């Protein structure tokens, strides 16, 4: 369509035009203080602050001062500094969100003002608290393998593909040491998880591992209560729905990770003192 082409051409011309005119209309210049530590910071700050046709900013590493030139008809220093803070850099008007600071590169972790530290501390505390949960001492027999399985499951909940092969291999070794007839099959299922290169592949293999482990746990009831849980939404190829074992009744879905953390329901309770099976929805 000719008309559409003309519009694209016109838009392209407009953009080229704005790039050529280094001078901004209604230009105003201000000097602003922005925290930062290295040349990486400089790049990130300037990228976050500058907007074509609106604002240009140059930050100096030694003085931590920035020169901002902006079109005073369309924007102001406040808007620019807000963008800089969202990118992780404290400045004279805004403190960066704790999460944005935490996401900065190691070399960019400048020293924050005391007021900002409290907020960061609370975020960090929550993060480490989460990581510690689910790691307990070693227990023999199926319980030991279960512990390793839960650690693998937790890694899948967190969605970190890198840590998974080593955990799966560790689990396979523990399973191979067991004498139960179902253990061998379960061990090879764990090896399949270790072979998975993507998180999707690992999750698909984990679904099979979980079914096999469920049979193993049914034949050899574990000491503590274990919940067999079901996610109806999981899809992989022709497979619809998937199960997993969990030490907690609360749902923490390993197939979707963060995205559908609480999706699922308990379909069976194994081990502990709980012999009777029941359906229970969380």
């Amino acid at each position: 369509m000719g008309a559409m082409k003309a519009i694209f051409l016109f838009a392209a011309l407009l953009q080229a035009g704005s790039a050529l005119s280094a001078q901004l209309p209604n230009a105003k210049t201000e000097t602003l203080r922005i925290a930062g530590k290295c040349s990486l910071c400089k790049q990130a700050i300037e990228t976050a602050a500058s907007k074509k046709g609106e604002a240009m900013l140059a930050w100096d590493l030694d003085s931590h001062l920035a020169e901002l030139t902006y079109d005073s008809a369309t924007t102001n220093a406040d808007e620019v500094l807000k963008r800089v803070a969202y990118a992780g850099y404290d400045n004279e008007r805004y403190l960066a969100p704790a999460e944005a600071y935490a996401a900065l590169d190691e070399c960019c972790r400048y020293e924050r003002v005391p007021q900002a530290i409290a907020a960061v501390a609370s975020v960090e505390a929550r993060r480490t608290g989460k990581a510690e949960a689910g790691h307990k001492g070693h227990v023999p027999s199926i319980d030991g393998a279960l512990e390793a399985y839960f650690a693998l499951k937790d890694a899948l909940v967190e969605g970190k593909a890198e840590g998974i092969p080593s955990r799966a291999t560790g689990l396979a070794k523990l399973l191979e040491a067991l004498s139960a007839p179902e253990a061998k099959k379960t061990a090879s299922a764990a090896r399949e998880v270790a072979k998975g290169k993507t998180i999707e592949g690992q999750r698909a293999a984990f679904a099979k591992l979980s079914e096999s482990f469920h049979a193993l746990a049914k034949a050899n009831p574990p000491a503590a209560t274990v919940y067999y849980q079901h996610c109806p939404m999981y899809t992989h190829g022709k497979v619809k729905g998937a199960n997993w074992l969990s030490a907690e009744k609360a749902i923490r879905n390993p197939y979707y990770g963060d995205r559908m953390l609480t999706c699922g329901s308990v379909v069976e309770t194994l081990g502990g003192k709980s012999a009777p099976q029941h359906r229970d929805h969380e």
Partner: protein
Amino acid sequence: MVGYGIRIPLLGLWVAGALAVSAQQTVRYDLAIADTVVNYTGKPRKAIAINGQLPAPTLHFTEGDTAEIHVHNHMHHETSIHWHGLLLPNEQDGVPHLTTAPIKGMGTHVYRFPIRQSGTYWYHSHTMLQEQLGMYGAFVIHKKDERPAAEEVMLLSDWSDENPHQIERSLHRATDWYGIRKGAAQSYGEGLLSGHFGTKLANEWKRMHAMDVSDVYYDRFLVNGQAEQQRARYRKGDTVRVRVINGSSSTYFWLTYAGGPLTVVASDGADVEPVTVDRLIVGVSETYDVEVTIPADGVAYELVATSEDRLGQASLWLGDGIRQLKQPLGGLDYFAGMAMMNDMMTVGGNMKDMGMDMSLQQMDMNAVMYPEGNGPKTLDYAMLRSPQPTVLPDKPFRTLHFELTGNMNRYVWTVNNRTVSESDKIAIEKGENIRIILTNNSMMRHPMHLHGHFFRVVNGQGDHAPLKNALDIMPMETDTIEFNASEGYGDWFFHCHILYHMMSGMGRIFAYEGSPPNPQLPEPKKALRKVYADDRRFYLGAEIGIESNASDGEVVLENTRWAWQTDWHLGPNSRKGFEVDSRLGRYLDKNQFLLAFVGWEWRHREGGHAPRNWFGQANTKDDRSAAHLGIQYTLPWFIVADLRMNSRGYVRLQVARDDIPLTARLRLRGAYNSDREYTLGAKYILTKYVSLSSHYDSDMGWGGGLTFTY
């Protein structure tokens, strides 16, 4: 009564600086309602102000007071004020024509009622779409002998520069303009690039348009009428009670705080045992009291309300100094949501929950679209617990089942597939207990609000079930609420509080048996017709192409069940031809896929054509003037099949698909019929009303021009 208002005549209006010193117990306010002009975006727009301000002033009372509120309507059209969440005599409830006389243009109305409760409530117009124009304010009732120093009102709302009646009409026309503005068009092209082409195909196969968590594009979100506000008086260690009120017309808000977690202490005015969370969603019309603390001096901490579609936010800064930002909530992954909806929707148009027994906001299916996932601790209704037992009187229960139903494509929203005007009032007996089991079988969440009563939300807290007056229910959820018919008399509205859903008829009226006549409504039958008229209205729409080969156009006038459609294909001369077709039809089935119609058709052309149609009849496509009977059925993938027979026994079948979203703004269409006519067209959407377009027609050939959409 001792109490006085100060009135200052200004610009010929009574702008009342309200209020009230009250030695005794009557507290009087004067509210002056007037048309006004606001400017939120650089463009002046009409709005409605109360006492010269938007939002309306916060009204303060103490439990035990008597409220006396004089409302002066300085507008030329009628209005009303509803006291949201208050327990009061029925004729004071403020639903025009249902409980209370409407306040006529230039008229005055006095509300008078005892204050029997405490907590955070609000008030708003219950007339047409006035709420969207700014007619809302906070209504705060303090407990006796208690007036905490550190408390703030955070009244949230949504603002659009577009006239609300245009918004409403556009929603009924299934406009995709709001999706384009939001970057949520979810076209095939975007699907292809993100690996979701199949997802989009499956979605349209199941007759679903682009999915979203909200329907309207808003220009601004407001806290107390502004994009942001600051309360600088707070210092380190202060705990601030924030009375959060969602006074928006159709926006849910996420609430997060830069200075730490939020402690929820009340919902919809009723206290709950404190529960601490990272975030909560505030449904339309809900109120929550939250407590936050100020961690340090020299900093203002951001309390942020983010629209559920995450396209905007409004902030309240607490404290003084450098501003500590809260990490914004990242944008929604619409295609992930679409894939989830595909799993949940049957081809027949029903929602299935896959046996997950969802309820009480505990499983937020929208989380598939959140980049931050389900990590932050989020409030749900199961966490709310009343400090006192809320057991209902030992009376028999009557159970009602309400299925929330709707049709996104035609913007028809119903309960048990019936609008307010299509259903009888529900008679209730004074003193009996009513249990309502609500199931949401629609694709949107609905904040269901009951007038004049608290209900208990049955949420696993036993005798301590929390009291609320508005309940958010997500798609596929089932929730149970219970209340005692304790108010004595009158008609009480129960409805979805999304303004455009309510106006399309999503609600029911509870009527106490044996109620005395309402002195404010001397002609009850006529008044009820006025109430019912809201959801019987017709909406006009049109798509008119002016192109070099011909004008193709369609004008439709539709309401909940009826549709009058007229279309034409007019060439420049009789060689290209002239066709006009007009029909009146009624949607017959629950999903409104099936329309039966009668109509009339005229066409004339001197161009030659295929001698016979598909059915072996002599082809009359170039010379016809006949009445016809027929049906239209929307097939999967939105293919509309139109089968008709005319008064001469001639049969025609046509299949057509409009508005295939190729890219965010590019649409394709095509049609083929048994007269062996066909057409193919494309349009590129420039603005809400104008597109560049081109089409080829078997009769008229190629052409290009503009298409106007209304």
